[in-house]
């Protein structure tokens, strides 16, 4: 396949890596924001073929990993109730709350179902009108258009036994929080291609100039990632800091404007807690008041649940890029994908799971 060879060709990858080595003079720390990119970087050893003076730092871009334990606890509380049919994406089921997880609720008789799309949850609500169907609406900007539309459709179709437990998070405020955090080492960002396919990248110009950081919109193939790194290094070496699009086959500056309009109609920004990081101001979405009827937190009165976070797990530092997974004491010992202590080990896109699955037990 010609195209495949274009984006995945090993010889081209090495050429690109050599080009990066040729232009790279300083020591640079570059963060990929997205968990899908972290997975691809570790799987393909991209962090090992770039010159040693480039450090790839893994960012917080895994929706499963950053969902705060308070939301999991609320989900567990709701899912355990009689007459509730609780719907979630599959990878949320093993994420530990304070004392349990959704799998255990299911094993204990709770009706917890895995759905592929929030529309499947709306369908279930239509099919079971006497039951309360609740959907766990997590994710970044890529998932938000789907969750917003599910709520709109439920309203349009007069489906009143449907509600959503919303825990949406946004990339730009996370970038800002990382740049403002004490001891931050990140000097350039690879922005997540699929988030940008929905939101465009117009909102990154302000960040790039305010924090003097290059931001390169990047895809997921090895060559996409290497090209993103190369462009970031070119800017770093030249002392530049602007936004570049290295994923034009999927991303435009404006993004998907129909999707953005629906998000705007259904959601408004709010402060949001990120697992292991804490509250980032205006970093999430919640339902607008006119859709309050569909808010599961209100419907089931779980607004005040406050969790206890385990302190053995250092996922917060991993998510901020302050610690590499294998530097965590529990990594590969008490904490493995089968016995995860934190969400970054649960999710297949989490940084801890990527390091575990690809055998990164010692520092490269």
């Amino acid at each position: 396949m010609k195209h495949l060879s274009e984006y995945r060709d090993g010889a081209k990858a090495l050429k690109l890596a050599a080009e990066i080595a040729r232009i790279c003079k300083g020591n640079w720390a570059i963060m990929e924001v997205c968990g899908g990119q972290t997975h691809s970087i570790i799987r393909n050893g991209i962090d090992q073929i770039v010159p040693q003076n480039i450090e790839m730092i893994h960012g917080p871009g895994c929706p499963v990993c950053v969902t705060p334990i308070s939301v999991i606890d609320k989900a567990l509380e709701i899912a355990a109730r009689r007459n509730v049919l609780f719907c979630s994406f599959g990878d949320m089921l093993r994420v530990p709350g304070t004392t349990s997880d959704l799998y255990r609720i299911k094993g204990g008789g709770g009706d917890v179902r895995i759905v592929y799309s929030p529309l499947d949850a709306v369908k279930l609500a239509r099919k079971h009108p006497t039951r309360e169907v609740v959907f766990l609406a997590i994710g970044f900007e890529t998932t938000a258009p789907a969750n917003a539309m599910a709520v709109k459709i439920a309203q349009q179709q007069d489906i009143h036994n449907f509600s959503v437990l919303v825990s949406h998070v946004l990339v730009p405020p996370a970038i800002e929080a990382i740049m403002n955090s004490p001891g931050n080492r990140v000097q350039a960002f690879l922005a997540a291609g699929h988030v940008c396919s929905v939101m465009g990248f117009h909102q990154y110009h302000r960040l790039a100039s305010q924090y003097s950081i290059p931001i390169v919109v990047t895809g997921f193939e090895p060559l996409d990632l290497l090209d993103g790194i190369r462009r970031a290094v070119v800017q770093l070496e030249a002392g530049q800091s602007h936004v570049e699009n290295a994923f034009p086959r999927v991303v435009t500056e404006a993004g998907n404007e129909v999707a953005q309009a629906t998000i705007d109609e259904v959601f408004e920004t709010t402060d949001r807690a990120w697992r292991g990081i804490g509250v980032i101001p205006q970093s999430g979405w919640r339902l607008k008041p006119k859709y309050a009827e569909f808010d599961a937190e209100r419907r089931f009165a779980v607004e005040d649940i406050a969790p206890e976070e385990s302190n053995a797990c250092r996922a917060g530092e991993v998510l901020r890029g302050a610690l590499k997974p294998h530097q965590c004491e529990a990594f590969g010992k008490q904490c493995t994908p089968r016995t995860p202590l934190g969400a970054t080990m649960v999710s297949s896109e989490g940084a801890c799971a990527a390091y575990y699955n690809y055998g990164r037990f010692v520092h490269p």
Partner: protein
Amino acid sequence: MCLAVPGQIESLYADNDTPMGKVNFGGVVKEVCMVYLPEVQIGDYVIVHVGFAIHQIDEESAQATLESFAELGLLDDELEDLRVSGEDS
């Protein structure tokens, strides 16, 4: 769930006024909401995220991405939800 998987549109229809389509992901066919891509036609390739088409791409990009996902074992994870969710929805 955070990956966006490419597939080819096999049919287009409306479900209670919502534009929908059947999309083929390398053999697995799934119902996908088309509301965010009003212009798409049968035969087009789209990137699908949690049951919604969010971007149209060319065939070669779609094939390359699918093969790369498959090779990384990522498709199994993504399509697992798709299979499990087919049981009772």
